[in-house]
């Protein structure tokens, strides 16, 4: 089974927000919610950097760990999904999430937030019918053998989605090409024995 991961190459992201738009379009996301966001640091300065971020489908997902209803589950592909029928909108997943991924349609008195919504890696969610699934969670592209639309549509291929090993390989090749001495894996004891990294160090 694959282990699905997103990765955003900060050196490639050009802050075009194509991923945000693609996601909203693919999943028909509720008004006011953006499952994916693009963050820019030091905007307008020499060291400006942009990153597209959404649910990163953590291995040890904090949202899962703190959810009072236990509505989260992990698919065989390592995708973190949640059951909107169980969600009570307490907001705990939002407190815990490192990426600000969980969002709520409302933010009213007495903790009335509505059902949490977040990126599903375009893998839908638990529902009785396809229509219900689409209405609640958006499209299920994974079931159709497709990857998330945000990454598919990224114009600079900064945003990568797919099996963790494939994503890592692509990124490592890029970094090697850019000439980092340790082939991108800083502090990784394996870096010295890694062929690509070794070549890079020689050629650099």
């Amino acid at each position: 089974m694959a282990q699905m991961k997103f990765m955003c190459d900060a050196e490639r992201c050009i802050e075009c927000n194509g991923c945000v738009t693609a996601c909203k379009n693919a999943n028909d996301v509720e008004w006011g919610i953006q499952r994916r966001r693009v963050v820019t640091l030091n905007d307008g300065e020499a060291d400006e950097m942009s990153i597209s971020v959404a649910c990163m489908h953590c291995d040890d997902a904090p949202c899962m760990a703190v959810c009072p209803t236990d509505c989260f589950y992990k698919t065989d592909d390592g995708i973190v999904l949640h059951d909107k029928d169980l969600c009570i909108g307490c907001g705990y997943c939002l407190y815990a999430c490192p990426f600000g991924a969980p969002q709520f349609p409302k933010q009213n008195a007495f903790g009335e937030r509505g059902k949490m919504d977040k990126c599903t890696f375009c893998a839908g969610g638990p529902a009785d019918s396809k229509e219900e699934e689409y209405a609640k969670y958006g499209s299920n592209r994974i079931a159709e053998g497709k990857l998330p639309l945000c990454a598919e549509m990224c114009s600079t291929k900064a945003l990568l989605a797919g099996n963790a090993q494939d994503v890592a390989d692509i990124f490592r090749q890029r970094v090697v090409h850019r000439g980092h001495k340790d082939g991108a894996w800083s502090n990784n004891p394996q870096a010295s024995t890694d062929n690509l990294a070794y070549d890079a160090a020689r050629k650099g």
Partner: protein
Amino acid sequence: MTVMTAQASTRAPSINTGWVRYLWRMAMLLVLVVFSLGVSQVAVAQADPEREMITAAPGISADQWRQVRSGDTSSNYRDSRHDSNYSLINASGETWRILRNRWVSPFGLIAVFGMASLIALFYLIVGRKELEAPRTGKKILRWPLLMRSLHWSMATLFIVLALTGMNLLYGKFIFRPLFGDAIWGAMISASKVSHNYLGPLFAILLIIMLVSVVKKNIPRKHDLEWLKQAGGLLKKGQHPDAGFSNAGEKVWFWLLATVGLALVISGFVLDFPNWGQSRDTMQWANIIHAVCGLGLTAVSLGHIYIGTLGMEGSIEGMTTGYVDETWAKEHHSLWYEEVKDQAITEEEVAARKAGDGHSEPSATRTS
């Protein structure tokens, strides 16, 4: 184009030689410029790829990742999400998770169940505190109707809030596997809704309660002696002096006035996300709320025990409003001295209650 016109001009010898020379020079210059452009482009293509990368796409440095982790949202921070004030990485989320899951959850359970077992053990070993002297049959008003209704409303709310709150923290480990998703879903949803809507009601009643009994709970010198003797709970026949409230009740009052208020305030922070408080504020409010809530739940077990099982005659004060003269003399000696002339017979109590209620004094005298 310019080059072509220059070449054309060389085929016109009739023109003034100075002009010809000038045009020749221009033509040569242009050819040189065009040629040099080509050469320089080749030079660029052969430049150090590392240098090119530095100019073309500046590498992301460790400093920038440190900046990300710091939760920076300074003036040049942009988030494409509408109205978002979230930093790129919510580093404090992990702190909150560890505090909640590894500290508050287990130690809260230890506090509540530890307290329950201690009380059970105490009951089995020491047992109920009975009245030493026989009842005189005469009654003294301790809690008027208004205070009794306030107390029982708060007690009901407290129990509902404690149970729903604990369900939010521990329920998923017990009831989800036990009942299945359909019942569990309804159960946890009801817990959250009732907790969120009843909480503010409890807060209002708590403040009314604190204000109405604060005068009776000012610490006095004799309270120290009471605490030293543990209220006489351990020894038969031991009854340290106490006013209307003994030191134990005063401790409970001041716990409610401090921890209880912290509980209520942090509850409001969590319950009204529409006030615009940040995610970080709510993380801390959640920890404070859980610690205070579980702590008070543990202590409340002691309060409930002493008011019901643990001591003969106590519950009467909160149900009928009246306590027996003997009970007052033994447990609240100083208060009894003040109000002993107000003692009435059971028939008189019944007559008072049968009346329209106006004859019942609205407040007792304070010690």
